[in-house]
């Protein structure tokens, strides 16, 4: 996709709606890969666009990507804020897969904060969401995480 963006047959000063979608997707992929440079680059672009056009889904995806970045950088409070903001939007949209993935990130954050109880609660919510979506690999992964939490 990044190669696609660099293709030169267009030379817009503004981004198009196509690019808008691409930025959202690239920000999401960057957060999954924990690629801080890419998160910074594409989340900024995605967020700008989302704000300009009121695109709440992309806004939520950008929030989550920033949350992941802050967590990796050790800014746990900002990470929590961003992830909760993302979760709030996903709840409103009732996008269960996105909710599950955000709970998963929150669970990881709680683990880093050594809050097993909160982690268990977040993982539990993620598990419910993934089960709703019949996302079997994600369900198994979350069950493993739950098992590995201290009693």
């Amino acid at each position, binding site marked *: *996709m990044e*190669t*696609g*963006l660099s*293709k030169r*047959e*267009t*030379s*817009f*000063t*503004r*981004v*198009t*709606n*196509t690019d*808008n*979608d*691409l930025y959202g997707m690239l920000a999401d992929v960057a957060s999954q890969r924990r690629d801080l440079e890419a998160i910074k680059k594409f989340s900024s672009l995605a967020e700008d666009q*989302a704000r*300009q*056009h*009121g*695109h*709440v*889904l*992309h806004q939520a995806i950008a929030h989550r990507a920033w949350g992941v970045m802050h967590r990796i950088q050790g800014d746990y409070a900002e990470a929590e804020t961003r992830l909760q903001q993302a979760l709030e939007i996903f709840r409103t*949209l*009732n*996008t*269960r*897969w*996105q909710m599950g993935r955000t709970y998963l990130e929150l669970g990881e954050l709680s683990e880093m904060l050594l809050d097993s109880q909160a982690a268990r609660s977040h993982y539990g919510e993620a598990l419910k969401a993934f089960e709703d*979506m*019949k*996302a*079997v*690999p*994600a369900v198994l992964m979350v069950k493993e995480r739950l098992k590995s939490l201290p009693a």
Partner: protein
Amino acid sequence: MTLKIRLFNHLQVQSDTTRDNATLRPRAQRLLVYLLLHRKNPIPRKTLAFTLWPDMPEIESLGMLRRALSDLRAGLPKDKEWVSAARDKITWNSSTSCWLDINIFEKQLQQADTESLARAVELYTGALLMDMDEEWLSAERERFRQMQFDALRKLTAHHQSVREYSTALEFTRRALLLEPLSELVYQDRMRLQFLAGDRAAALAEYERLQTLLEKEIGVAPMEETRNLMESIARGEAVAKLEAMLLPSLASQVPPKLVGRETEVKKLAELWGEASRSRGNLSIISGEAGIGKSHLTRDLAYYVTQKGGLPLTGHCYEFENALPYQPIVDSLRPVVHIIQTLPLPVIHRAALAHLMPEVFVSEDVGRTLLSSDELRVQLFEALLKSFLLLSQNQPVLLILEDMHWASESVLDWLTFIAPRLTGNRMMVAITYRTEEIDPQHALPRLARRFEKEELVVPIPLQRLSRESNRQWVAHLSGLEQSRANAAADWLFAETAGNPFFLQEIVRGMLETGQIRVEAGQWSGEFIERTKDEMDVPLPDSLRETILARTRRLSELARAFLQAAAVAGRTFQFEIVSRAGGWADEQSLDALEDLSTRGFIREENSAGHFVFIHHLIREAIYANLTTPRKLYWHLHLAQTIRDVYPEEFETIAYHFIAAGEKQLGVDYSQKAAERAEALYAYEDASRHLRVALDLLGEEDHSDTRLALLESLADNYRLVRQGADAMSAYQSALGIIDGKTPRNIIIEARLYRKIYQTVVDMWENASAENFNAVLRVSIDLRPKVNALLTILKKEPPHVETVNLLRVIAVYTINYDIGEKEEFAFQFARTAVEFARRIGSPLILSTALTTLATVFGAFGFIRERLEVSQEALELSRESNFNDPLEQIQLLIAVGSSHAAVGEYEQAMVYFQDAERIAAQSRAISDQIRALSLLHLCLFRLDRWDEMLEIEDVRRVLQETSPVERIGAPCYAIGLSSAVHHWRGNLELSRKLKDESSAIMLSVVGSMENFMRSHYY
């Protein structure tokens, strides 16, 4: 324990240890026989009871069946379950070890080689169960008798071909036991006796037949038999009979192809694969006369023996055939079956275009299919016809001489090649290697599909010296050592080309250089070659053929010349009328030509065909130019009188006769018909021919119309660069004209820029850049035209040009593109408002919305799209296609700002209208956009349901669709991945990539839009 059962003659049941006849009660025998005759299927008890005991009431007959079953089980060896009896059905258990004579008989006949045939006929020791008098047996008894009779005749033909006359006579004797009054068998016996050197015995056979027919049914022998007798009586039949022998044998048991063992084996394997639902395409190539048609004829024969259905179509050089002609021709013999097949209505309607005399054009309701979709629908209809036929018996489609195929046939072949897998259909095509270059569609087809093993190339080489020797020994009836000298002489002359060799031999048979005595060659040729002396022979194949024509009567030669101008296949009536000959004269000429092996009858409708293309080509090439012009003109006029709708052939002959204007007129008509059949490349060919006739200096309106049509056709098949060039030539014609027609100019420029815009999604970067350069160079002229148009009263063409230029500017212009794009789009809207048509205004607004969207004004895009949509709700807006586009535009605007729920409402509406209008591509697009919204909203189950609907539609119109439909497949792949269905996910990912690559070529050619 093995059970041995014989049904020929009378029932015998033996086990391999005791060799005792099993004693079975009559009712058990009946049941056993019936089950054995229907051993491949379970038989319902009721059917059995009713058939075996038809006079009993149902309950009693069912009771009788139970008792018969019990008797049968008691009478057969106990170690196996020979009969499986379920509650409602009874089956002979085929998995048990049972030797059954009829089973072996049928299997041997299917093998079709001489040894198997010989083994089969020995199994037939008498009629099937001749001592059982059951009504249900008689049809089967007759079937086996007929199979035995056919096998005996094939064996007769085989032994005749290898000069084993006494063995052949023995088979005819046995055939006469089955059919004592068969004149065909008596004819065989007369020939055989005569060839064996016993003319008196041959004549005695005739007398015997005459007496028998008179006594039994009071008739005389047929004229054909009497002619044969007279020919034998005059003693002039030796050469004639030998000459007749080759083609007649080919239609019975084809003589073994010498030097082609590898190719024959490969084709047999491919047929085996096709029979097991692994359809394939083989491409047989080689020089003229190398034996391609002989090979396919043998393949067809082999397939018939194996229970398959061979269908053949030919491409011809001279007749400018109708689109899809050879494919349609191949279907004609089975069209009565196709009419009964469950073809969907849309496919029947498509076939009605091709075979209006067979399929009634059915009303399929209003359709809004794109040209691509309509074309694919026709392709599908043709393919489906073959595939439905193949459900009953596997099908072999042979397409001969594809080097002369029109583009429509080549396109269809490219379409079906990847679709044969999984079907019981084999396609074998032939082409001459010297007629085409490596860039021709056929070698490209082979290269494209060879890697996936969908296409198997079968190149034929010239015969080796050794193969040539074997063949001559086979033809001459001489011992190998004696035949070698003659063979080597011929090899030096013909260089291993089998057709050249055959023609030289025919010529020498006619001149008496070769004589046939007692089935063996003798005469001057044999004597001189034996003594290593020179033999005067023609030094080329053409000279050989022409030498033969010089021995014809003057009338026959003139008829042959006219026929050669008519084409490889010609209609007797047309040639006869063109020559102005009386029917009787023409018939004499025709029969003479047929007897001498120049032509043969193709079908009962009076069509004849040259035995080989090379014969026709040699005769045609030898005609003087005035003679060619004369015949072409007379044929054109005759065909125009008799078949005025045969535009293609009439055009061809008028052009060849030098009648320029008539050639242009009929080429134009042929192009229009090809367009109506979605054969755009064929149409382009006709248009190019017409344009060539007019010449570049012609500046008439006719040439302008031809160029515009040609360019439109190029656009339809995505040949953007060619389209641009033709539009430019059209502009060149009106350039210097006064008064200037600015509306036509606007239309042509609009089409030029639309071509560039269309190519953005559908072309590789390389092709796209080529047209882009041309369009940039033309911009100053367009700007100048727009300046003039803006001062004129508003016209729809002005609006359309402004719209297209606006969209073009978004993507390709440099500099102040945003300003210009908005300026063009807003001017289009302003002009459209002045015209006052809601349809024109809505299209202009849609363009403005596109410009807004392109420059990131997504909310503005939504507002303008909604305004355009409102217009479509007005009562005089009667364009469902445009309405669909408006709904999709508004839906997309909502989706672009993340309002997926709102977007879906519009996409659903668009999908509904598209479904009502049968606009399949739009319906698929709307579904794909719904798919995308559902994905974003994590409603995966609903999304996958949509995917199923989309797939069904895609199957009915399998055009490769990039953009949203392709993207949707990728999204489904992601969902299946997240659900752990990795195999399906990978498959869909590959499918999505393959669609993109098939359209764009390679990743290097992807443009920005393709990545998305």
